[in-house]
């Protein structure tokens, strides 16, 4: 009996070891690629190419689409900050997704909007909005009021209304740095290929002082859970995604701040309601469309357009957020399974897709089981001490190294936290994040995957990040 248990543990340990080694090899490769691209980009960005872009008459216009559902606290400030963005030609489309609070009323009051019967071309099937508001004194701003249909529906309505060739999705509770849109557009204009998506970085605004939709004083949050998330965001956005972008195999961009080519999105069918993370699904749909029509294209991720967002402040909210992301990732992967191991999709199919499927989506179940079973197997004698320590080293030591490396990279290139004190705190949390926090998040994520297999397909579909933090703004 004990012998059989040990056999089983031997097998699970082999799986865990494989998982850890594979994950860390991929992380290391991504880290090297990221170091290369991020520092190259930093050198390039030092020459301030954005002024040309801002002055040029041919810089493509961009529609900023802001889906909003019950955002009365944040919406006016968000719109003000978007109107303030340094960009030559832009339109701002706020899509009110059937809010039950006074989101629309606040906007009408602030900008003196009135309902207008404007042309609405239904390129994507959405149904006509309930009302369109506009004020010629604010020619850039349009407000659409649609029936409550979820974030993908709101985004599709915004796309139908947009006149610009590019659009940028912006979450209603995000604060975008004033140069960020220019920086996001730069890769599109620089590229020799058609760039259909350009994604930016998301940072955590907790702890910062916010006035009139601008960050006036940068500071770190105070609680451990927010600090751990700060380090985690720095790590994933600086060490993961630039690496995939360098391989032209981006699988995830954050819908909180992401520039997309409108025609391609419409051709690809727009945002879909199949998953709870429509942003990831959109990338996959675009890849399907582009591959089917044999078009050359790029999906670009850049590290200096920064968008600040509120992160969950309690463990309960964090758990909900992570379960939802994981559920969405699993849905997206299983929905777009024909990309897997398919050379038609290049490195996305051969590398990025399996990585996200087995190391990110399903891997977190392995990691969660490993967190529990490896100590168990050591206790029942299934694993000698040396092997146990190697596992612990891989699980904790290497993670710490990556986190600390990403904080260093942040300080070298972006320097959003210039004070020495901030760097010291971030370094300390780069270590602490790997002890406790990461294990906790892994368990939340594993729950998300299990929820998928338990048949939970739609779960709080419309609730996106910031909405989970009640009253976080305007302070």
């Amino acid at each position: 009996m004990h012998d059989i248990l040990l056999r089983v543990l031997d097998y699970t340990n082999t799986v865990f070891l494989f998982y850890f080694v594979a994950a860390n090899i991929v992380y290391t490769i991504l880290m090297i690629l990221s170091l290369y691209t991020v520092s190259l980009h930093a050198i390039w960005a030092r020459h301030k190419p954005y002024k040309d872009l801002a002055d040029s008459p041919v810089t493509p216009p961009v529609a900023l689409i802001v889906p909003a559902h019950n955002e009365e606290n944040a919406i006016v400030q968000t719109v003000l900050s978007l109107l303030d963005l340094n960009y030559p030609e832009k339109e701002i489309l706020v899509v009110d997704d059937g809010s039950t609070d006074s989101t629309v009323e606040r906007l009408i009051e602030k900008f003196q909007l009135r309902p207008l019967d404007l042309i609405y071309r239904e390129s994507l099937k959405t149904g006509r909005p309930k009302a369109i508001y506009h004020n010629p004194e604010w020619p850039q701003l349009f407000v659409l009021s649609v029936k409550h249909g979820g974030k993908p529906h709101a985004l599709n309505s915004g796309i139908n209304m947009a006149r610009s060739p590019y659009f940028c999705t912006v979450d209603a509770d995000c604060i975008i740095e004033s140069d960020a849109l220019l920086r996001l557009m730069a890769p599109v204009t620089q590229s020799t290929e058609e760039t259909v998506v350009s994604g930016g970085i998301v940072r955590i605004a907790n702890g910062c002082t916010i006035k009139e939709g601008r960050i006036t004083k940068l500071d770190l949050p105070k609680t451990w859970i927010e600090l751990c998330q700060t380090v985690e965001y720095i790590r994933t956005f600086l060490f993961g995604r630039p690496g995939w972008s360098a391989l032209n195999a981006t699988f995830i961009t954050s819908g909180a701040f992401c520039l997309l080519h409108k025609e391609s999105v419409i051709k690809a069918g727009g945002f879909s309601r199949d998953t709870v993370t429509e942003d990831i699904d959109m990338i996959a749909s675009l890849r399907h469309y582009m591959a089917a029509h044999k078009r050359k294209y790029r999906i670009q991720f850049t590290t200096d357009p920064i968008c600040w967002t509120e992160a969950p402040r309690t463990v309960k909210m964090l758990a909900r957020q992570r379960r939802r992301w994981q559920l969405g990732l699993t849905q997206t992967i299983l929905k777009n399974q024909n990309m897997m191991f398919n050379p038609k999709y290049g490195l996305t199919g051969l590398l990025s897709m399996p990585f996200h499927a087995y190391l990110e989506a399903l891997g977190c179940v392995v990691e969660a089981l490993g967190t529990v079973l490896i100590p168990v197997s050591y206790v029942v004698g299934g694993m000698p001490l040396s092997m146990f320590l190697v596992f612990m080293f891989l699980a904790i030591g290497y993670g710490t190294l990556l986190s600390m490396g990403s904080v260093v990279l942040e300080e070298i290139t972006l320097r959003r936290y210039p004070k020495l004190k901030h760097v010291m705190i971030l370094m300390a949390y780069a270590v602490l994040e790997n002890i406790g926090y990461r294990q906790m998040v892994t368990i939340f994520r594993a729950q998300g995957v299990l929820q998928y297999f338990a048949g939970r397909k739609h779960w709080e579909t419309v609730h996106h990040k910031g909405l989970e933090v009640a009253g976080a703004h305007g302070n």
Partner: protein
Amino acid sequence: MGISLLRNRAILGGILLLTLLGCWEFWWKPQYRPYYQSGQAQYLREDYAKALSSLKTAYAIEPNASELVTLLGWTHFKLRQPEKARYYFQRALKIEPGNEEAYLGMAALELNRGGKAETAGLERIMRKRPGDPDVMSLLAAAYVQDGKNSLGANLYRLLLADKNYRQNASEALEELFGLQGFSDPIPSSFAPLTRAENTRVPFRATENSMWRQESGNWQKYYVAGVNFGPGTPGFFGSDPPVDGKVYSTYLQQTWQMNANVMRVYTLLPPSFYRAFKDATEAGS
């Protein structure tokens, strides 16, 4: 949902990956068994150094096979490396708490360094493997250490029939009966204990003197004594010599220097009492 999931490349890929890992774990990766078997053969040929190197190779491949870990323990035991042997026996017991060989190994280690081993556990193994000379000898030693000399002697007597243990058993019996150095045959049992019918008081201490009773009269008795303990030159105090000749010589020399009393502050090996008996019988 069930059928469509099975057609899903992502799921299929995952299942394939897990199967491949299973194949690797159970078939493809180097297996420890050949090394274990050659180590076992070398151990049985009593080539312990070679056995150790084969077993170490096997252990590096598979650290969780309890029979392998136990054999490593025994090899170290035979090479007189008790600390390493203890590590492997303990590990084997951790992997498989009911491992008899490892339990015997732990008992042997304890008995070897003069400690006690739990007789109940050994008895249980004895019942499972009746007549096994290895278990029998360990249990006998454990009985003796526990003070159950007659039980131990019975087992040793049975072991006299075994060709590997004959020598050991007869030495142990001679020690138990205090016969070493004397040419008596080993008796078939311990002499029955009988108590004298009347208590007799041959000595007393009173009026600042020692007195001895001789044919009913008390007479003063001058004590010229020797304090006699187990701490013999060349031996540890806990491990006194068992050869009766040593004690006979000491007693004779004590006698010759006109000492008339011998004080013993602890129990000495049976051969001492045997020698004492001989000496007093010869002296009086």
